[in-house]
């Protein structure tokens, strides 16, 4: 792969040509930004697989994948980067294998362990855009707090059964964060995972792809301080497929993590003075 200019090889021009000629992509400059960008995908499951697929195809320079889980047969209807022969292998490893075959220009770093209070800062600090592809409130609050403190934007999505939600949090440290939207954690009994409530593959797959496009828009500089508006996109697969944009609140002046009167600090997190699992509460089994 010999470079034909200071940025790209001939293969890369051929590979990315079709997207470079799309006006809103930002042409060659957009591709250069993608090549120099580092994206961390937290969770290589129903959201992470399609997001990883399209981000690596688009030419993101470096992708980090963090997931402590191994591939299970019950994932395969929606976690389409994993194949039957990768059952039992770490998801981030399985994802890396396909990505390297799809696009050798992408550098992949795998973290086959859980994101925790102690390792989150070091890992998140190494990336420009954080993709929250996890499936519990506890991880979402942890990712939010650390990303805010590290001044990193978050592309966050979720899905269940036939529906999904998408947003961008902590945009250039001026947009609202997860705690601005959800100051109080939900009661655990009201929280359903894809494992318990079920999910249809294309519905969660579609959300993963919308995440990839939002990441591309962030990296190519499409969103600016002037044109960015806080939003939540709500997808429904039934009765008819729709994706609607809700106009959302701005950064909240009393937010516990991202406002001037924030009370949560890096030390509080790294010293484990905040335990996100108990913050979100255990399911109170005697109510069930």
């Amino acid at each position: 792969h010999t470079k034909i200019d200071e940025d790209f090889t001939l293969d890369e021009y051929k590979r990315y040509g079709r997207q470079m000629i799309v006006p809103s992509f930002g042409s060659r400059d957009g591709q250069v930004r993608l090549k120099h960008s580092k994206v961390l995908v937290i969770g290589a499951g129903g959201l992470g697989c399609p997001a990883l697929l399209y981000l690596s195809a688009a030419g993101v320079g470096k992708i980090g994948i963090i997931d402590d889980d191994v591939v299970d047969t019950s994932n395969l209807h929606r976690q389409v980067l994993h194949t039957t022969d990768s059952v039992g292998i770490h998801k981030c490893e399985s994802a890396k294998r396909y990505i390297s075959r799809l696009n050798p220009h992408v550098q992949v770093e795998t973290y086959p362990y859980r994101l925790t209070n102690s390792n989150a800062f070091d890992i998140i600090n190494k990336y420009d855009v954080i993709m929250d592809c996890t499936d519990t409130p506890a991880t979402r609050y942890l990712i939010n707090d650390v990303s805010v403190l590290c001044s990193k934007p978050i592309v966050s999505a979720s899905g269940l059964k036939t529906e999904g939600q998408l947003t961008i949090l902590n945009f250039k440290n001026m947009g609202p964060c997860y705690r601005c939207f959800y100051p109080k954690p939900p009661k655990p009994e009201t929280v359903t995972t894809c494992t318990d409530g079920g999910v249809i593959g294309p519905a969660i797959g579609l959300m993963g792809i919308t995440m990839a496009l939002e990441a591309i828009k962030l990296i190519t500089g499409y969103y600016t301080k002037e044109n960015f508006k806080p939003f939540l996109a709500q997808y429904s697969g039934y009765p008819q497929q729709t994706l609607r944009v809700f106009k959302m609140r701005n950064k909240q002046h009393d937010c516990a993590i991202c406002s001037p009167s924030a009370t949560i600090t890096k030390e509080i997190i790294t010293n484990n003075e905040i335990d996100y699992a108990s913050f979100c509460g255990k399911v109170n089994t005697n109510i069930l």
Partner: protein
Amino acid sequence: MAIKVKVEFLGGLDVISSGVREHKLSVPLEEGEATLKDLVDYITNTIITDPKDIPVFIEDDTVRPGILVLINDTDWELEGGEDYVIESGDVFTFTSTLHGG
């Protein structure tokens, strides 16, 4: 005298109205005075099929945290929350926050 509004339950919240997502309501309240708080009470008493489901919708006398409320596709935080004065033709969307991934 009734105010014609549309109410939607998304994110699985339609479980509280037997799976019906969209409700076109003719709310017997005074336009210009009735607030979103009044509408939430009206919904709780008329649309929620099984009283057992009320806690899915209401907690501490307001909409349960974990449910986003939109007025004409806009976060109610931007429209005065419960004090918003409802108007004929308004669309009120209640959507459960999803966490799965």
